[in-house]
């Protein structure tokens, strides 16, 4: 006897939950089933590093209280048995790993990304190599770190963790594990750390600050081979031919869209699933949201997945509304990357285009001031990207300037030299921004009767 549901949501994180919430805004009756191979209630995936640092706890990482699912009648089937292994869109059926089948009305693919395992010799076979995407990954890495520290203490040597990949995930893992082991070394094939969100100059500033806090980053260097002894990685042979002994490895070279299910079912795939503005895939009654969707970059028009939390939330809301047939369903046209990340007391906000092509159409302004590094990228009189290293104040104002394509010449030039202010906007725009839903019976002085 198959399970039947009106809405099937595959994936239990930002996009899936956001879609469920959106469905409920329009359709209070239809049954909603969320399935995921992870056996946990939905949690903030990026929280895993904070969990290891003690900035949050296993009691606090859950996105919604348990009552929420009951109140909104969201049925969940969580665990390895409930992983969808095959999607049959024509039949509106999904087959689960446990052998059961789900008959659905409409389906959302929100299964996120999966870690990309680089083709480094020895990496795949070692038991002490961990990705750093899920709670299980983090807990396993934590356990390995504790064991490594204990063993190293007995042996009277420093414990060491090697992180392969100095992207956001790799560096957050490095920060988290820094408190457990004596040394954390981060390898990065690219010539700079955080290659996707920083430029060379900013990366150098950040790298020095991370070094002061106990994280050694080696840009331009990666492992050509992992030395495995008795099933365990014990050292990395670097591309410099040096041998770097280690207690365990975190592999964080990148992620790829977890879209195999849809592709196998015949969905059109570019660098992610190709969707329309309602986030419908090419399959009948199948929508997609989150990391596996190919997004049009609002700035350069390129098409690729944007594996970011806010993007997943926004897409989930659009897809959910569309699935439920909301009267005024919003549409999803394009997005640009906005990243906020912190390492210890270092803050980094970046958005949009950071490393513009040198084709003469972009201009960039950079400024180093003590610990802070700031970069603004402009094109055609518009702000299209920024880096704010250790100058986070009011950063979202810049994001809004990019998003709303506000011509820079309308703004007070001082807006780029210190924390931006609302007063840097011209009066009419300022009023419009700050006075949405302003009562119609009052004038701009706050008076009920004009005079």
């Amino acid at each position, binding site marked *: 006897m198959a399970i039947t549901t009106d809405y099937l949501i595959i994936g239990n994180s930002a996009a899936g939950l956001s879609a469920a919430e959106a469905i409920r805004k329009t359709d209070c009756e239809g049954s909603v089933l969320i399935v995921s191979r992870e056996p946990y209630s939905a949690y903030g995936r*990026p929280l895993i590093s904070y969990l290891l640092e003690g900035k949050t706890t296993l009691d606090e990482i859950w996105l919604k209280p348990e009552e929420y699912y009951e109140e909104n009648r969201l049925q969940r089937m969580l665990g390895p048995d409930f992983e969808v292994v095959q999607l049959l869109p024509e039949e509106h059926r999904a087959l689960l790993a446990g052998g059961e089948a789900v008959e659905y009305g409409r389906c959302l693919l929100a299964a996120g990304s999966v870690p990309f395992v680089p083709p480094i010799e020895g990496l795949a076979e070692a038991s002490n190599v961990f990705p750093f995407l899920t709670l299980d990954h983090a807990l396993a890495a934590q356990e390995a770190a504790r064991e490594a520290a204990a063993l190293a203490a007995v042996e009277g040597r420093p414990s060491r963790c090697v992180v392969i990949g100095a992207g956001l995930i790799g560096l957050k893992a490095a920060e988290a594990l820094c408190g457990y082991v004596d040394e954390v070394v981060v390898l990065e094939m690219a010539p700079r750390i955080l290659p996707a969100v920083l430029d060379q100059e900013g990366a150098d500033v950040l790298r020095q600050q991370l070094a002061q806090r106990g994280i050694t980053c080696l840009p331009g260097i990666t492992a050509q081979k992992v030395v495995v002894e008795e099933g365990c990685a014990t050292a990395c042979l670097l591309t410099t031919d040096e041998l770097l002994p280690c207690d365990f490895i975190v592999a964080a070279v990148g992620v790829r869209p977890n879209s195999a299910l849809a592709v196998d079912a015949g969905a059109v795939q570019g660098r992610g699933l190709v969707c329309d503005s309602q986030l419908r895939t090419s399959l009948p009654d199948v929508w997609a949201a989150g990391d596996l969707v190919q997004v049009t970059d609002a700035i350069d028009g390129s098409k690729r997945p944007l594996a970011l939390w806010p993007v997943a*939330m926004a897409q989930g809301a659009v897809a959910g509304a569309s699935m439920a047939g909301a009267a005024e369903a919003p549409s999803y046209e394009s997005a640009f990357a906005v990243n906020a990340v912190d390492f210890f007391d270092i803050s980094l906000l970046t958005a949009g285009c950071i490393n513009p092509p040198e084709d003469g159409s972009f201009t960039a302004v950079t400024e180093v001031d003590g610990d802070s590094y700031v970069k603004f990228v402009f094109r055609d009189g518009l702000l299209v990207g920024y880096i704010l290293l250790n100058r986070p104040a009011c*950063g*979202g104002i810049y994001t809004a300037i990019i998003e709303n394509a506000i011509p820079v010449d309308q703004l007070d030039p001082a807006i780029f030299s210190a924390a931006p202010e609302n*007063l840097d906007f011209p009066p009419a725009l300022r009023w419009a921004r700050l006075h949405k839903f302003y009562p119609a019976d009052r004038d701009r002085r706050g008076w009920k009767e004009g005079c």
Partner: protein
Amino acid sequence: MKRIYALEEWCIDCKRCEVACKVFHSKSKDPVKAFLYEQPKPRNRVRVEGNRTLSIAINCRHCPTAKCVEGCISGAMTRNPETGVVTSNPEKCVGCRTCVSMCPFGAVTIEEGPTHPIAFKCDLCGDELGVPGSPSCVAACPNRALIYVESEGN
């Protein structure tokens, strides 16, 4: 919902709103203790921009589709569906600054919290998260440059 609106026409840059906000959000609710003795120092969630010639108080707009909520990785930042009030739960916040990078008004700041830096923003002076109270900045404004009125949207 009722929203706070700031009016440039009457803002005189006295920053009494900031003082009142700090005091309301202090442990003691006493200005002298709040300013001179409490640790961590109470934070004001309303901020006056500008100078005596032109100034305006900035605080959370409690957006219907709040970007800070959309961006929050920890579930700390939520918008109460009934009241519309956007608040950050200090227990859940990890201080990642996604909200800072998303808020179009600069109305969220990350400041020292009880154990680690966390987000601070206007909570409309409610006694509990998501429930509006009577905003102390509005009460402290000597010139009605801050008004707390029923808005045209939720």
